């Protein structure tokens, strides 16, 4: 398969992200925040896709890596003068250490990756329900510890005075980095080996692929991306532990499933589509004008619409909007003609 023909596989998701960003720039300042939020969600879902999409194993633990990344980036960037108020009980080392914006994002990715590796090392041996419940347990523990432990962060209060550096540019670039990493990974032999284990674990194992090792690689990479996305998120809005718990887990899973968990395009399309709908109904709480028609809904409608949508997609189109396929150009006729000619001459 030629490189040119494969180009749309990564270009289309990237262009969708850029188009969203441009749309965000074109609208009013007030609405721009929604677009930035959408882009951060895309980054989180792409991280989720790297593991779930490629391995076919359900993980509820991804948001715990987002949370860990958010904590890392948040704690390290709050100005030193504000730290005694923002984090009353924090460890001395964290109270005196500060890093810049980009460094905080990089560190968030590193911490997310390391945490995912440490968790995945034992857990990736499990499969099926046991794996699902174990990753859920990781989510519960992370939420519990981050929510109460004052030594490592703001505990119950949630973050305050984190520099709000995630604007539309930072969100777009961050999102594009995630897409590039996810695509690069799925084209490497590691990505292909993992996809082989997804399609047929027994055959893949027979071909010499270590399922445990391949899943661990993807889990770690997904954890790093999640940590990075968490860093982006905490620079966007003040977060608390419960913002990064069950609801976010559900919403991001919904995005992946609606889009189609089998492809990068599906992850991006799902995140954009679901976020669009979700944001629309969230904004409609304060009345939105749709072509002169004043729409006003009660708070909580967005979640209900999302739930119904997700059930419908699962029933009517279980492989998602994209059907789990990437977008690539159709095979050219000439290649086939050449082959025929070659066959005729021999």
């Amino acid at each position, binding site marked *: 398969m030629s490189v040119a023909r494969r180009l749309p596989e990564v270009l289309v998701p990237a262009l969708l992200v850029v188009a969203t960003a441009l749309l965000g720039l074109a609208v009013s300042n007030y609405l721009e925040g929604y677009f930035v939020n959408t882009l951060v969600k895309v980054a989180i879902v792409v991280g989720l896709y790297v593991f779930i999409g490629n391995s*076919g194993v*359900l993980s509820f633990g991804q948001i715990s890596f987002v949370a860990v990344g958010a904590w890392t980036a948040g704690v390290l960037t709050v100005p030193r003068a504000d730290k005694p108020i923002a984090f009353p009980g924090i460890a001395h080392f964290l109270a005196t250490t500060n890093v810049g914006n980009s460094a905080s994002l990089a560190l968030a990715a590193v911490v997310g990756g390391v945490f995912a590796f440490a968790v995945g090392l*034992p*857990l990736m*041996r*499990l*499969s*099926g*329900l*046991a794996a*699902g*419940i*174990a990753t*859920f*347990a*990781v989510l*519960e*523990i992370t939420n*519990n*510890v981050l929510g*109460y432990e004052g030594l490592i962060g703001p505990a119950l209060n949630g973050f305050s005075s984190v520099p709000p550096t995630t604007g539309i540019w930072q969100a777009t670039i961050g999102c594009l980095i995630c897409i590039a990493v996810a695509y690069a990974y799925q084209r490497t032999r590691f990505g292909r080996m993992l996809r082989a284990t997804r399609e047929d*674990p*027994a055959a893949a194992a027979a071909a010499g692929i270590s399922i445990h090792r391949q899943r661990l690689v993807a889990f770690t990479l997904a954890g790093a991306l999640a940590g990075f996305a968490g860093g982006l998120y905490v620079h966007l809005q003040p977060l608390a532990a419960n913002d990064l718990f*069950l*609801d976010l887990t*559900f919403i991001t*899973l*919904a995005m992946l*499933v609606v889009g189609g968990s089998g492809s990068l395009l599906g992850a991006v399309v799902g995140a954009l589509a679901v976020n669009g709908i979700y944001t629309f109904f969230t904004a409609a709480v304060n009345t939105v004008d749709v072509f002169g028609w004043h729409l006003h809904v*009660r*708070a*909580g*409608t967005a*979640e*209900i619409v*999302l*739930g*119904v949508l*997700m*059930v419908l997609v*699962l*029933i009517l189109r*279980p492989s998602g909007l994209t059907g789990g396929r990437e977008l690539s150009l159709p095979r050219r006729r000439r290649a086939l003609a050449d082959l025929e000619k070659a066959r005729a001459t021999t």
Partner: protein
Amino acid sequence: MILGILSLQPLTWPTVATALALGGVYALMAVGIGLVFGVLRLVNFAYGQLIMAGGYALAYGSLWNFATWQSILLCFGVVLVLTVLMDRLVFRPLRTSSPTVMLVATFAVAFLLQNIALLKFGPLSKNVGSLAQLNAPWDIFGVQIKEIAVLAVVTALGCLFILQLLLTRTPLGLHMRAAAMDFRTARLLGVRANRVIGAAVIISGLLAATSAVFLSVQENSISSTFGLQDTIIVLAGVVVGGMNRPIPATLGGFSIGFATGILGGVLPADKTQYLTSFIFAAVIVVLLVRPNGLFTRGGGAVERV
């Protein structure tokens, strides 16, 4: 954290009684979840929202000045209707999908119901009124034990006994056990699929309603997230115990409830907020050591290729 564990509080009888009661309620929930899993291969995340609906029914019953038995009847009615609706509208169309798709679907239903409740009943929690009198302590051999704890243990034992009779002594029970073992072969041998599934769904609904009554009285504050955390813990317990058979699943549910109750009582006061972490860390350890279940014998089900 380590030092905190060393300075545990002494174990008291009321703690044991509370733990037994929680274990009993969780065992009932575990059976409800396990039965549906057995015949449908469906992990029902939305089970907690059935319990939430039951809790709201009790709360509204007391708001409308219903007698206790009327409230409980209302609770059973609401939960049963919701269970059957859930099965018809969501689980039946998805019956042939992969377990992952079904799991995500129940996740969606749970989220949906929770938000409908939030929209309908508001963010403020409601209490169950007169039923809360059951929290009054009884004096048993000089030990103060909550009335509800005794009732919960007795009811759980009763329900489990009846269920065991149903499963082992009736044709329907035989069909259900056969379907849980191998659905396709059971159908070939004349087990009617819809009847077995219907029975499992209805029994799980009845158990959800029973659990709802006890949980509502114990916590006495019904909000849209009521039952959610309990369901997650019970699901973990069921998987830890062994999902494939009713008895290991029940034991798993009971153990995790009992452990939660005991730990909640003996952890020093400044560490109780980490109760969730301790429980789930234990879950992870057990899953790693016995991935097929703590209470199952042999190697468990062999994965088919």
